[in-house]
């Protein structure tokens, strides 16, 4: 059982494992793995708590009802599973500023957290506009050969590569 305590596994092995999980979820749950709708539903649940039932009239919440569903539980599971894996290999660590960020932009906590919120907001908006994220489009949609998912996967990375090179090598290199 030593392999459970290893810090990293081969990316090919991990990829095969995720591929097999996609079969299991299609078979047992009739679902394709995806994460971004969990954030819409969480937002809806928070807004419902703050502003009451009137938010049910919003069209998007009729499409994605603010409630706990399979995908929401999946995201909770990811937090638990990742935590477990990190604990087994001694990698669990409270961290605010990751290494590459601090090497490039220094140790200003406010700067890092603001960029995280801005990045998250763009991801939340962009994934809902594109109809999925790196899991829903990138893995699940692509493995089902959805045309839109292959396009989305390419654009996630094209946008990400251009922006990160601009941020870290052009702006950070000044």
């Amino acid at each position, binding site marked *: 059982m030593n392999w459970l305590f290893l810090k990293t596994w081969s990316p090919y092995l991990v*990829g095969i494992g995720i591929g097999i999980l996609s079969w299991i979820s299609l078979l047992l*749950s*009739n679902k394709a793995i995806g994460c971004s709708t969990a954030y819409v539903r969480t937002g809806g649940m928070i807004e419902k708590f703050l502003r009451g039932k009137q938010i049910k009239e*919003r069209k998007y919440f009729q499409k994605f009802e603010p409630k706990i569903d*399979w995908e929401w539980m999946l*995201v909770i*599971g990811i937090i638990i599973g990742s935590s477990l894996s990190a604990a087994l290999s001694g990698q669990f660590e409270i961290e605010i500023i990751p290494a590459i960020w601090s090497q490039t932009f220094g140790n200003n906590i406010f700067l890092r957290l603001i960029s995280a919120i801005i*990045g998250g907001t763009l991801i939340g908006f962009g994934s809902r506009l*594109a109809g999925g994220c790196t899991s829903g489009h990138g893995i699940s949609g692509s493995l089902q050969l959805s045309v839109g998912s292959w396009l989305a996967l390419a654009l996630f990375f094209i946008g990400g590569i251009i922006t990160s090179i601009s*941020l870290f090598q052009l702006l950070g290199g000044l």
Partner: protein
Amino acid sequence: MFKKLHEKKKAQLLLGLLIGIFFGFLLQKGGATNYNVIINQLLLRDFTIIKIMITAVITGMIGAYLLKKFKKIKLHPKPFYLKGIVLGGLIFGVGFAFLGYCPGTGAGALGTGSIDALFGIIGMILGSLIFSRIYPSISQTLQKKEKEWETIPQALGINPWAIILPIITIYLVFVYFFEFF
């Protein structure tokens, strides 16, 4: 298959949780919940993330289309709408670089103790709520379904294996050159 299980609500929530636990475990073991690994992928210095994703897609594709062939599962391909996917995909990419996590790996990073991932998650919730407000004005434009087809074999009118087998071949050639040269 398993139609009765699909309808059991509580069992499904539990299954979602269990599949998520395995997914999160794999993501962490692959290094995909680590900010540095993701940013180094976007800076083209480390190809771990792409290797994981493409291997998952290839493995998943073979199993999903075999299971479909033998009528064990239904597929759920995503609808195609060009404008929304292009615009949303690029906006997502910009956010991906600023945050350094995506919706799945961000949840995983939170599990390993990354506080910046928690702020990213707050952002994702905010971004989704902003989208929910503008949805009525774009649902008939940016997200209007333009085509009858959803998948590559449907669009080309060919057998899925006529596309899957070439994709597997290209993948194996890439892996060979990537790992042995």
